[in-house]
């Protein structure tokens, strides 16, 4: 009799119905402009998975670009995690990757595995086998124009 195969890892999913704000954002870059708050929720049928979250901000895609921010969503016993994945950009902050005029991509990436750059590494299984892990992402386009925001 064949042994029961081990349960395979299943991928997380970004709930597009709860992503905020809308996908295309236009803003000026003055210090008085409203902060940008990006947020999404994650679903993972494997409720014990610890999820790694990363934010990338770029004008030209580069697979080796370091993450702007990194975090974790620990297990909370639910498939849809209670905790949102968030990123705040404050135009009054010294460190603001959107401070210059241009068209940017703000990308939120979540993975249930260990990431090398953006690539999730398989998990080793007993017996020399491995289980794939996954990374999914959602991208916003932010169009930044020079100038203060109207009062």
């Amino acid at each position, binding site marked *: 009799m064949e042994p029961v195969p081990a349960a395979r890892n299943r991928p997380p999913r970004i709930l597009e119905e709860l992503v905020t704000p809308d996908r295309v954002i236009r803003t000026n870059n003055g210090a008085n402009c409203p902060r940008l708050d990006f947020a999404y929720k994650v679903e993972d049928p494997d409720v014990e998975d610890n999820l790694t979250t990363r934010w990338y901000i770029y004008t030209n895609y580069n697979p080796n670009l370091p993450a702007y921010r990194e975090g974790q969503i620990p297990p909370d016993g639910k498939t*849809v995690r209670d905790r949102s994945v968030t990123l705040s950009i404050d135009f009054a902050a010294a*460190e603001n990757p959107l401070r*210059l005029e241009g068209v940017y991509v703000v990308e939120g990436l979540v993975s249930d595995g260990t990431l090398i750059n953006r690539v999730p590494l398989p998990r080793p299984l007993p017996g020399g086998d491995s289980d794939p892990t996954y990374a999914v992402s959602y991208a916003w386009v932010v169009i930044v124009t020079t100038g203060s925001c109207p009062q």
Partner: protein
Amino acid sequence: MKLRAPITWCLLLAVAAAGCGRKQAVSFHYCTDDSECSAGRVCFADGCGELVQGLRIEVIPNAREGLYAQDFAPASLSAREDLTLSGASLIQGAFQQLSGGQPVTLQGPVSVRAAGESLLVPGRSRSFEFTSSQGTYSLPVATGSYSISANALDNVLPPRQPRTKVNLTPGLTATVDFLFPAVESLTRLEGRLLLANGLPITEAEVDVQALEPVTLRPLSQRAHASSGTPGATGAFTLQIEPLAVNVLVQASPRSADALVPRKEFRVDVTGSPPILELGDFGSTFAISGTLTSSDGTPIPSATIYLEGLANGGGTFRTASTSSNAAGVFTVRTLRSAPGSQLTLWAIPLLQSASGILRVRVAVIGPANLGFFTAPDKILVSGTVGRLDGKAATGIRVEAEPVAAVASSLSLPGSGAYAISDQNGEFRIRLDPAVYRLDFLPSDPQLPRLSRFVTIDNVEDPSQGVQIQPLTLSSGRRITGTVFSPAGPTNMVTHASIRFYRLSTDPASTAAVLLAETVTDSQNNYSVVLPTH
């Protein structure tokens, strides 16, 4: 006696050393934990209060279907709180243009944008955008107070931005029609944008736009000034809002990579064609330097940029660069205006022990500016305990900067966090600022807490500061069902629910998150809020 003296000295030295090395105590802005509050009142970020006071609930039913956030302000709070949603909030209207004195449907694509924030949850900014070529629009939005603007995309008409804001409560539809002026009624402003001495700008493309001088509302679309090519003349034409007389013309480079100053000019549109001079800001060149920590160690991967006043009166910011493994950086810049200095910003990585450096530098030409020493971040230590007296382990402590402080004047970026260890202790390195510290337990039975704290004027940064020990609150579970508006009931499956408390702290009046969750497949939710 001969034996005692050395012991006494040792003790004195030890006490002195301990005194020198003692961490400076720092208090939260208000209470530390519920023990300081009377029965039934909870220690919130802005002090002791009753849970229901200032409680706000945000529900996002399904943003993908156009059902955006709806906010609630419950007058009371029971163990079961059902939430009944209204239909989508809408802003709708028509795009018209005067023609022969009569409004007619405006042809061509028009982008309409609503930007504002929640009426009930301060600090929750919201913006929505929609482009229509039908002469009408219907824009689903979250509840809130919005400034609405419309921009005709393929012609010269100035953007429309009504002065009054639109307040939308759940399910409400507001009508905002936009009436664009006739093209022939616009004020045509022709002028030239030049360097000093009548020379054209050939290095980069520059745009101009007319703004209302006080409110900075756009009075024209952006237009290209002839620039960026060898044959450029600097000529530009702006089609400006009728009746506008005194305007602010803003000149800015089209590309962020172009090192051309941005400058604003007051212009009387009834006068002769203006000649706007950006001045002789010169050519770009490279400056270099080395960034180190206070102990002389090179700081790699720091973000470096310069900003300031250019010759001619315009302002500019350079592109960012990164320091290399040896802490060496190179930035292409313009020279600073005579008598002024540029500001050099160096921002080490979030996990670095070095903090943000802001230093004034005179930049007159290519040079190695030498060594720059970034200040140490302040080591902030604290302890989190449970109500049973045990250490609270695995608590994620997130530091959200909410206001700058006088000693720094620069607001750090967000994202710093620490995890409490087996003793409930956490250590986090922060730049000086006012922070909201969020304490997020991994135990789903415990509520998250937030406290405001000012990290500034530290006597001995190497020792850091010690925050008062904090005890987590008890949790009170609130459950409920989210009922959808008329329509498919599954529209609110996986609705986002967030509970907030209003903040009265003058450093940050943005509402503070108390709990968040998502509805299940039966539209039910459950959250844990603090109780005492």
